[in-house]
């Protein structure tokens, strides 16, 4: 996949959303959040990918492009989770839709609705950008995240991911 060159309707920053139970808020990621984001990702994946996340922030952070979003969930100054994605046009021949490329919530902060609120917030942004469908792609054995997306009402998309070794 490659970034779309087409522009979408201008988006205003997302309204700050407060969670009902723990008082978390959802907002755009900032450069100051990167250390925590890198730590969350490293805790979950076992790999500390500093350069990767700085590059992601350069591309997705601070509304680098209107159709891109990089959001964090914050509780009392602590980043508990994040989500990123963007609207892409005619990817795989399909009309424009929102793609979620990553979502993570600290293991000790799960089951509190943070993932749901992050997904809701990015979907609201996609909707403001003029699309009405959200998609994602994940490993078949990533049951934890697949179950999460299923619980959010997501069903199989009309695609099959294919691969082969390149000799």
């Amino acid at each position, binding site marked *: 996949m490659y970034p779309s060159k087409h522009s979408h309707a201008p988006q205003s920053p997302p309204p700050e959303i407060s969670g009902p139970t723990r008082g978390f808020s959802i907002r755009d990621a900032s450069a100051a959040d990167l250390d925590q984001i890198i730590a969350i990702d490293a805790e979950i994946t076992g790999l500390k990918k500093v350069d990767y996340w700085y590059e992601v922030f350069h591309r997705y952070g601070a509304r680098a492009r209107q159709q891109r979003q990089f959001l964090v969930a914050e509780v009392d100054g602590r980043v508990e989770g994040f989500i990123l994605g963007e609207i892409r046009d005619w990817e795989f021949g399909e009309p424009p839709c929102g793609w979620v490329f990553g979502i993570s919530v600290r293991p000790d902060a799960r089951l509190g609705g943070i993932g749901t609120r992050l997904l809701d917030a990015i979907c609201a942004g996609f909707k403001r950008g003029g699309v009405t469908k959200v998609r994602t792609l994940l490993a*078949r*054995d990533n*049951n934890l995240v*697949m*179950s999460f997306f*299923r*619980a959010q*009402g997501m069903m*199989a998309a009309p695609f099959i991911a294919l691969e082969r070794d390149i000799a």
Partner: protein
Amino acid sequence: MKLQRSTSIALCSILEAAASPERLVSAPEIAEKYGVSPHHLAKVLQQLGRARLVVASRGVGGGYRFVGNPKRVTLLDVIEIFEDISARPAESGDKENATDVGRALALVLSEVDETARATFRSITISTMLKLIARERPGD
């Protein structure tokens, strides 16, 4: 993909019971709704009881209650009580599987099996109840 009849009955029974946790669901009610023989249903419910997914209450007003955790129990958990849908390894005595054609076919079938397992494993009873509500006419 087609599930065995017992598996299908088990899933329907679990979902009926989980949808109404405040009451007991009677076996005749399930049998009538899904067009299944009471004898077959009794055997299925017995297996679900042994798997500690339902408990039975006997007597007038008796029935079944789902006692699993709807956010944890998946479709695969229920299915695997009744049938094995895992990717099938080639049987050593099967001549077809010793051929290039047989091995290539097995590879494709295994791909289908693994996708089916991943799908069933990712859908909990709770997610299914939401899906059922969404599919309900008028909702």
